[in-house]
């Protein structure tokens, strides 16, 4: 090889998704009208604590230690706003450990919708508002300003690309599925067909799932085997994107499976060789020229065999529940109550709809693994009962407007919040079209 160094270098982008929904408590049809509590704080706390113990804390500690030893290790995280809020409430030490990683400068944080929602499917600017909420949250907790975006479960199409670029981002993650690549390799940086050319990272789902889903099936997977796969990628294919749930390490694959040792071995092995260099997404955008434009007219995602929207909006129940939630937007927003608005957004978290999927076989098993309900029907019933009670609450609000004192308190709270929005976000807010 006598090609110059930069052209032979392959970049490895390793992106981990961190997310925990706020799960609902059992809510019966007969509870509609009681204006009860919707979210199962006790369960959510217990899960946050368990996953912190099994995954977030030990894996973050490992990453921090490795990054200090090998500064060439780079990692990308996307942490949903609902997860950040729950860490703050239940496991502040997790937030601290992510902050420590942020401080190394070797870790990039992506922006996403604050509530890990399907807001991109809603009319109006709910999507943009949630993205700005999330960027503000990242700035508040990690002192970072994200420039690269990832939408909920890598949902993407050209239109989403346009909206994300209008928000000021210069890159986005999606899944490297065959029907959009049409024979091309996922191992390149692509760009949106529009003039601005938002850069697109495409996940190699085979290599990602080899760790996330098939680690144990590989008997278990060894670092040597995995390195041989990475090394087998032709050297002109220069951006390898691996993306998976961060909960893979210790929660989905338990610690005693050796998954953490595997991660340690893999990162060390990559750090010690020369031709694959680890990079954050923005580093790749700075140093790699896009290979080709990529048009994605139809929605894609990283979920299920179909890799479309069917994991959340695939059956009548899911679409009905989603539509009912969306229809509440105008009423909710006409009431100046940040608490109600926040709870409505918690109900937008995609997991609620994911639990209602009635798919079978392998996909069905994955849905069932994540679901706190015995069946998708229970998930639907519970969600709808909550939503109906919530609608009832909102209509009560309209019938009995807040007294003056309360209204004043709400207004000043809203103003206080407004002031906390960083100025750059305010500018951004004015820059996109309504």
């Amino acid at each position, binding site marked *: 090889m006598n090609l110059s160094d930069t052209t032979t270098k392959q970049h490895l982008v390793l992106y981990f998704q961190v997310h925990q929904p706020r799960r609902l408590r059992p809510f019966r049809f007969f509870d509609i009208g009681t204006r009860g509590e919707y979210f199962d704080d006790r369960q959510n706390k217990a899960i946050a604590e368990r996953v912190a113990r099994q995954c977030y804390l030990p894996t973050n500690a490992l990453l921090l230690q490795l990054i200090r030893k090998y500064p060439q290790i780079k990692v990308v995280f996307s942490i949903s706003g609902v997860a950040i809020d729950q860490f703050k409430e239940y496991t502040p030490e997790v937030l601290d450990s992510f902050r420590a990683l942020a401080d190394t400068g070797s870790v990039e944080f992506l922006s996403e919708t604050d509530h890990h929602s399907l807001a991109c499917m809603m009319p109006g600017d709910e999507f943009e508002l949630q993205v700005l909420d999330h960027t503000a949250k990242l700035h508040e907790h990690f002192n970072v300003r994200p420039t690269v975006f990832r939408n909920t479960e890598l949902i993407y199409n050209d239109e989403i690309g346009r909206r994300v670029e209008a928000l000021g981002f210069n890159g986005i993650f999606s899944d490297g599925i065959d029907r959009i690549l049409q024979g091309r390799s996922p191992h390149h940086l692509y760009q949106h067909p529009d003039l601005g050319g938002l850069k697109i990272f495409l996940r190699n789902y085979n290599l990602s799932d080899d760790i996330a889903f098939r680690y144990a099936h590989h008997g278990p997977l060894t670092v040597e085997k995995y390195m041989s796969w990475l090394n087998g990628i032709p050297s002109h294919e220069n951006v390898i994107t691996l993306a998976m749930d961060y909960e893979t390490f210790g929660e989905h694959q338990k610690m005693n499976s050796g998954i953490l040792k595997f991660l340690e071995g893999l990162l060390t092995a990559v750090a010690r060789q020369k031709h694959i260099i680890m990079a954050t997404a923005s580093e790749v955008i700075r140093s790699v020229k896009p290979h080709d434009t990529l048009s994605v007219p139809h929605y894609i995602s990283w979920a299920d065999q179909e890799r479309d929207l069917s994991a959340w909006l695939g*059956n009548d129940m899911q679409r009905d529940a989603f539509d009912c939630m969306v229809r509440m937007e105008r009423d909710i927003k006409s009431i100046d109550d940040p608490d109600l608005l926040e709870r409505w957004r918690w109900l937008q978290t995609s997991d609620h709809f994911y639990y209602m999927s009635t798919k079978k076989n392998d996909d069905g098993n994955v849905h069932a693994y994540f679901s706190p309900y015995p069946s998708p029907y229970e998930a639907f019933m519970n969600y709808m009962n909550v939503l109906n009670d919530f609608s009832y609450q909102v209509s009560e609000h309209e019938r009995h407007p807040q007294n003056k004192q309360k209204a004043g308190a709400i207004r000043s709270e809203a103003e206080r919040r407004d002031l906390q929005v960083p100025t750059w976000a305010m500018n951004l807010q004015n820059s996109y079209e309504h």
Partner: protein
Amino acid sequence: MTFPAGIAAQQVSNKPLVVHVHSTEFDRSGEYVDQKVYAIEREGVEKADHILAVSKWTKDILVYRYKVPAEKISVSYNGITPKDLTTTPAIPSIGSHVVTFLGRLTYQKGPFYFVEAARKVLEKFPDAHFVVAGSGDLFPQVVERVAQLKLSSRFHFTGFLKGESIDKVWSVSSVYVMPSVSEPFGITPLEAIQAGVPVIVSNQSGVAEVMPHAIKVDFWKTDDLADAICNVLAYESLSTTLKKNSLKEIKNITWDKAAKKIKTIYHELI
């Protein structure tokens, strides 16, 4: 009750005895079993070389109540003969919310749980109708209980039905409820599904094991049962999704499949 004959044949012919269990004395009578019947059943399952139970529910009863070693029992589910939905005759609808119980009015079928759940459903859906199709030794008591609760105007007792009359009941039903106390299998829910009616079944039934697209509750939890009924009545998308998916699912629950399984087991024994 054919056990003694089976055992005799086994002894005379020196061939293996396979026993098919479709119901036990515990299903029919609960805790207060007829000791004579129990003794016969127990001898039958003891002497059998292999047992085919109609569900895991029944297998568990044989293991725990009859002390049969689990490895001697295979589960072979019932099936349903495919039938076309379009031939269903309709009758004028009696209302938009019709909840149906169809089965013998005996202890085993749990009719009182149905009445109790109906009482609760009526708090939310005062216009709902409840069809009780079937007869049995509890018939007078069920009618009496409904009258006592002053719900007679909401209840429709059809007596024992068969053939086309059943299809007519299905054609007006919004949901079918099977609150059985102990149901070895339960083919009626599959027939309801075939007729395009969503179903709610008790967890204490074999059919619950093969039908993921049904709502399942414990028979004694009438609050849960009422809740499930209300949900199906309230949310059309729930009802349509249940219908659509369960109709697809019963295509895999066939007698053909049951026959193949039984044949393999027979071959293994010879």
